[in-house]
Structures are given as C-alpha cells and as structure tokens.
C-alpha cells in the first residue's frame, strides 16, 4: 500500500524503494572520524553523494577517533551510545571487538560485491582483520621533513635512523603521544632486526631499551596527539622532522606547497575502517548499514583516493584510482603502496598491540611524564 502511494505521487521506482526503506531508518547519523583532510575526503566521497541520494538524511561529525576506544567504553558504561559509526585504526577495532563494544558483521551480507563481480571476502582480502572491522583505506605513518634547514648543510635524511641523529640533523622533532610505532622505530634504530621486533618488545628489558633510545631525543621532541599537528608544526617551521600520516603530509606538500618532503623509510602500514557500536537501536542500525553498504562499494572507495593519498581497501577499486580531484596530478606515486615507497616497511602488528596496548601505554605515559 505504502509502495503504491509512493508510486502514485510520481516518484521514480528507485526512489520508491528507498522511501520504503526509509520508514524504519533513522534520519540522522553521528559519524566519528579524525578531522582534517581525511575527514574532508570522507565527506566528499561518501556522505555528500549519500545525502544527495537520500534526501532528509543529516550527518553529524565528531572528531574523536583518537579517543574512540575510551569514549565508547565510557558511553557503554553510562548506557548511552550516541555514535552510529566510528572510524578507527585496525588495532583499536580489535580491542573494541574483543570487548564486545563493536558489532560483529556478516561481511557477505552487509557489504556490497566488487564492481568486477568479486566476492566481498576476496575483494577486501587481507584487510579484513577481524569480525567487526569494515575496511576503508590502507595508510601509512611515515616522516616528513623540512627541506630548508640551514643547519643540515644540504644533507637530507634518507633513513629512519636520521630521526634519532641529533648531530647531523639537529632541530625539533614531532612524534605521536602514543607508544605505538615510536617503540618499533626506536628498536629498529637500536640494532634490533625486523623479525625480532615484537619478541624484544614483549620483554620488560626490550621496552626499556626502546624507551632509552627515545630518551636520546626526548628533549628535542614535541608530542602530537592530533593528526593535524605535525603538518602544522612542519609548515610553521617549529619542527624539522616529524611523524605523520602520509595523506596529511601529501596535503602539506602538494596542496599547500610547503617546503616539506617525505621520508618513506620504515613506514608503518595500517588499515583504517569503520566499526559499528554494539547494540544500536534498530532504526539507527538500519540507517548505518544502508550507509556502510553504499560508502564501501568499489566506486566510493576509489573516489576517496582522489582527495587524499590513501590506498583503497578493495582490490577492485585500485584500477579506478586516477588523478587528484583538484590538482589533477597522478595519485599513484604518492600512495604508500607504490613500490618505490616501500623498500623498508612494517605492517602494524594488530594482534600484538591489541594484547599489549594497555600494558605498554601505562609504562610509556609514565616515561613521558618523567
């Protein structure tokens, strides 16, 4: 009956279908992301076209992804989850999934098939890291440095360990205010081989060794907590070298033409994606599932790469990645997955970090406060 009335009002068949579906769907969503250039790319590639296709849907953005785990825990404790979809890194999704704070997902059911007809599981491949995580992008954390530092006498950093070399590359550094990645980098530059990395880090002595290496540059380091900090500090000339997400650095270098260059050595790959908080009310869940299916299809994931230099999580999206939406430059050389950029790299050890984050974080924060 409802369908018939809708048809009679003259809407197209497609619109009628979605109007029927809209009956039991909430009309607004709260999405949580990281802010900055990354969130803008999500708005341009996902939410704007989605809102254009679904009239009356509104989206609220919350830039709290770096505190997603703790905030979701707090919301869960308070019994009032106000978020509908949360953008998190792989390890955080593992923790949320383990703690029952994120919804487990039947991928074949919830996600769309690849445009080339491939299965969901095949298309996403290794990026499907656990039962809760809906992958969007492959990104890396790497270093950017100023190209105009006089004290460097024309030397340019070529290796990760130049970050720890205050003699040849003096100046302030920026590192993330979290142990993850910093500890691995410190050990790599302290002579630990890649294959022994987590075995060493798991022992108390290994952790102390890593912190001791970081101690050598602690006085020269500014600790960032928001992804936008390092690009800002680099552009201001407050730091000479700092770790950041590769897409943010791309934006500083190419879009804002700052005298900054990339140091890809030992970049750390990571996956970023959505999780749906557990136990959402039915109407909100229906809306979120509808959005997720749309926003993670082949075309949408490829579209995002036109705004920021992160690799799409679907194999079927890769051939569709072309040029930057505004600058018109070829995106492929700026992707972390470009062979020239990945001579040395780590892949974020999600299981290890999910297990050890609490332990290591406590020690790291105490070290930081000292």
């Amino acid at each position, binding site marked *: 009956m409802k369908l018939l009335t809708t048809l009679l009002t003259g809407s197209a068949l497609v619109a009628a279908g979605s109007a029927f579906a809209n009956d039991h769907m909430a009309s607004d969503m709260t999405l949580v992301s990281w802010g900055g250039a990354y969130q803008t790319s999500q708005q341009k590639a996902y939410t704007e076209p989605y809102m254009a296709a679904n009239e009356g849907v509104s989206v609220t953005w919350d830039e709290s992804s770096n*505190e997603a785990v703790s905030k979701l825990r707090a919301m869960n404790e308070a019994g009032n989850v106000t978020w509908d979809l949360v953008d998190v890194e792989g390890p955080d999704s593992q923790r949320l999934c383990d*703690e029952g704070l994120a919804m487990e997902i039947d991928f074949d059911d919830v996600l769309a098939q690849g445009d080339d007809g491939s299965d969901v599981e095949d298309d996403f491949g290794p990026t499907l890291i656990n039962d809760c995580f809906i992958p969007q992008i492959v990104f890396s954390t790497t270093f950017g440095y100023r190209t105009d530092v006089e004290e460097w006498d024309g030397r340019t950093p070529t290796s990760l360990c130049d970050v720890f070399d205050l003699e040849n590359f003096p100046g302030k550094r920026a590192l993330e205010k979290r142990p993850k990645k910093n500890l691995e980098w410190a050990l790599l530059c302290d002579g630990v081989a890649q294959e022994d990395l987590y075995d060493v880090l798991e022992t108390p002595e290994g952790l102390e060794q890593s912190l001791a290496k970081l101690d050598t540059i602690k006085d020269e380091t*500014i600790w960032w907590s928001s992804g936008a900090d390092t690009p800002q500090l680099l552009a201001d000339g407050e730091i000479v070298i700092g770790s950041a997400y590769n897409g943010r650095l791309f934006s500083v270098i190419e879009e804002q033409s700052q005298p900054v260059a990339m140091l890809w050595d030992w970049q750390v790959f990571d996956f970023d994606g959505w999780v749906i908080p557990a136990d959402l009310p039915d109407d909100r869940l229906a809306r979120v599932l509808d959005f997720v299916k749309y926003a993670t299809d082949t075309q949408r994931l490829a579209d995002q790469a036109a705004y920021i230099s992160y690799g799409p999580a679907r194999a079927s999206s890769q051939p569709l990645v072309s040029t930057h939406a505004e600058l018109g430059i070829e995106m492929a050389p700026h992707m972390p997955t470009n062979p020239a950029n990945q001579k040395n790299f780590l892949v974020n050890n999600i299981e290890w970090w999910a297990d050890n984050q609490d*332990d290591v974080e406590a020690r790291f924060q*105490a070290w930081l406060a000292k």
Partner: protein
Amino acid sequence: MSDATETGRVLSADGTPLKKSLNRALRVQKMRALALIAPLLIFVLVTFIAPIADMLFRSVENQIVSDTLPRTVAALKDWDPESGEVPDEQVFDALYKDMFVAQEQKIHTRVGSRLNYENVGMSSLFRKSGRAVEKMGDLYVDQFEDLNDAWGEETTWVALMASPAYAQAATGWLAEQDAAKKAGQAFTKAPPAFEPAPGIGDLLPQTAEAFGQFADFMRTEEEETALDDEPWTLVYTALYNDLTAASEAGIAAYSGPQADLLKEAKAAVATFESASRKAQFLEADEDWGDVGVWQTIRVYAPRYTPGYFLNAVDKQLGPDGITDQPENQQIYIMLFKRTLFMSMVITVSCILLGYPVAWLLANLRMRTANLLMILVLLPFWTSLLVRTSAWKVMLQQQGVINDVLVWLGLVDDANRLIMINNQFGTIVAMTHILLPFMILPLYSVMQTINPSYLRAAKSLGATNWTAFWRVYFPQSVPGIGAGSILVFILAIGYYITPEIVGGTTGTFISNRIAYHISSSLNWGLAAALGAILLAAVLILYWAYDRIVGIDNVKLGG
C-alpha cells in the same frame, strides 16, 4: 493591646497566642524561601554534588574482580601466597569457569585492564587467555560426540537439563518466532526463563550450574532459547567432571529423560582422555605460572580497596603490604608538588602584575578608568582556547616574540628562545588568563580606601613610600587575599592551558586526571587523585583562614 487577657498571654487578632501565630507566619515564610531556592538546591544536588560523590566513591570501589571471577576469588582463599607455589588444579578449574563465562559476556578484558593497573602485563594475559579458554573444552566435546551423536543435539541437552515446562515453552516460543518471520511481522516476545530439571542439580551439580548460566546467557544476551545453539564447551567439561565424580549407583538410579545416554556416558568417561586445566592455562600463557599474578588477584579481590589512593601517592598494595612503586613509575607526588609550586608562581605573578593595574583603575578619572576596565575585561570575554592558542603563536620558536627579538638583534637566529612546551609557557599563559581574577577583587577593595588617609599620612610627614606601605597597602591586603585564593584555586585545577602550551614538563596533576578519565579509563585512580587535590585545596583554605582570617577577605566594597 486590649487583647492582653487575664491569662497574661499575648493573643493575636484571631485569639491564638501571638507566639504561635508568629511562628506560623515565620514558618510559611521559611517554606516560601525554601521553595524559592528549591530549584537551585535540587539542581546543585543532582548535577553537582551527586556526580562528584559518585566519582569520588569510585576511588575505593573494586567490585569488578569479585563479580567477574567469583569462583576463583573463593578458591584462592585457601591458597597460601607465602608458599611461593602456583595454586592447584582446583583454583585453575574455578578460573576456567569464571573466564569462560566472562569471555562469553566479553567482560574478561575489563577485569584484565583493572588488574593491569596494579600489575602491568595482566591485561594482555587476560586477553590471550580469553581467546584460549573457549577451545579448552573441545577435547571433551569431541569425545562425547564421538561416543554418541545425540550429545551434539540441542534437544538432548534441553531434555536432560531443563524442566519439561521450559522445554515446552522454548519450543512454543521458537514456533511463534518462525510464524512471525514467515508472516513478515516483527517479533518482540521475550524468550522464556530457564528452569532446571528437578533433581538434576543434585545428580550433576557442575553441569547444572554451567548449563543454567548458558541458558541465562542465551536469554539475556542473545535473546534466544537454549534450543538455539549447542551448549558451551564449558558444559561438556562440567559433565565430564560430574560423571567422573558421580557414583556408579547414583547414575544407575537416575530414571529421568536421557537416562540411557547418561549411563552410557558414565561407563565411557573412565576411558576418556582428559587434560589438566592448569597445563592448558600455562600453555595459553606462561604468566599463569607466575605467583605474582595470583597474588595480585588475591590482594585485589575485596570489594573495596585502598589501592587507588596508594597509587595516587606512588605506593602500591602488594602481597607484602604497602610498598613504593618502582622508581621509574613514581610520578604523582612530583606532579602534585609541581602543580602546587607552579600555581604559587602564577599567583605571585598575578599579584605583581595586577596590583598596579588595580591601583590605576581605582585612582584614575572615571572615564579613563572605565576604558582601562574594558581592556581588563576584554580578554576575559574571549574564549579560553583562543587565548591559549594565541599564546602558542606568540611564544613558539618561529613565533612573534622570537621574530621580534631576532629582528632587533637581541637573539641569534640559530638560538631562538624556547618559551613554549615547558613550564615557562604554562606560567605565562596562565598568568595572563587568570589576571582578571586578581585585578577585579583588588580593584573593588582599593575603591573603598579613602584617599584622604594617604593625604593625611603625607601631611604628617610620611614619604610617598611610607605612606603607601604603612597606610595604603595594609588596607588593600583583603583584596590580595581574595584574589590569591581565587587565582590559586583556579590554577591548581587548570588543565586545558597546560595541555596546549605545557609540553611534558609544564603539565599539571589535572592533566593526569584528564588522561585517566578519558584515555586510560582508570577512573578509580583519577577519582583518588581528584580527592587528594580537593583535600589539598580545603587544607590550604583552612590554613589561610587560620593565618589571615577569612573575614579579612573581601570580594567587593
């Protein structure tokens, strides 16, 4: 007055004693006054006092351990921590049951996080074991199912373990659900509550308990019945334990449903392959062989703990009583000292900068004073974040101040001053932000000082300085007192500004509180730190009252 009667009591116009009628009138007035402030009173109680009390209560609350691991906590009572030996099989069996239920409910990681505050490493221990514990019973599941396929059927279990009434209700509920699904209707009826079969608890105590928990879990968490899924592997393990322990005769005497199946199983369990729970846990993570882990669980089993308060003063509660934290983790006392010291520096800077400004405000002509007043208040009306970020722009190495100094040639370009991300940055930014809180009380006190006193002093031969110091200054002390209390108490609890401009050396204890509230989620420790901070402020206030006298504090004319 003609109402005064022979009884000697004063009566009001209507004949009631005056005292009574006055009381009544006053009572009405009091009630009215109370009703007027009631909204505020209730508002303050509900939104301020109650949450603070609740938060402070968390500093001693420790229910999570005994709620999540009830059997383990009970079993550990008999264990001697001094023995230096890992607890026996019985404790591991209790741990297995607790962990199994906890990981199904996905709460095992929370107790792990809680214990991790006391013994770093326990969070990962609980996470890893949570993954392993589900597989520990597979051995028994396989053997029971090899023995007879019926053990893999949900209906077998429900017939054996549940009362006939439950079995019937569950079947009915499933049928209704199917019917609703076919008709395309929403189905919202709650699944039936579980009831154990009569007598099964005596025959198979562990199995009955485990199955009961399974059925309750299915009902409350999955909103399904025990007929919807095979029982947990925990139930099979419990059945093995029960059958091994049960007497031949007891099983033979059983005549309820599935009696034959049970008898067959009883005959077979003797030949079953079994596994030690202890060995399984040690295989999952060797840390279970660490006595320290067990001591931590035992020490933190009580429902209330002084542990958080001890942590907040760099101590910890261990099996040997109270000890110091390892040296590299002692940060809170240092942070408390730093907070108090820097707040004092900020207060003194505010007095030094605010006193002349307040004097000018009080002594200039009205028009000029008003203009100055607006200049004082203007930053007051600007957002705190904007002001703090502005200081960032001013103070940073490539910032305005450094640029000017370099341009003037006072500072070498290569050695720009470091004025931010350290204590200096925090002091400068916070002095600026808190200055109005010093100037306003000073100003209002100075306004009331009669200028003729100064003239009188001078006419009696005092120098300018003596007149100021002996006559004017003492009268302005109440203003300094009020301003100092305001600035100091505000400073001690500040956290946004130190977070933005303080780096790692310029942060306050409140930054740690915020970190524990929003990042590490160690709310107990945050509450303990907050309680100590509150106590410190109250003690300082009391000391101030004793030394200066709170009556000498004036906020206004």
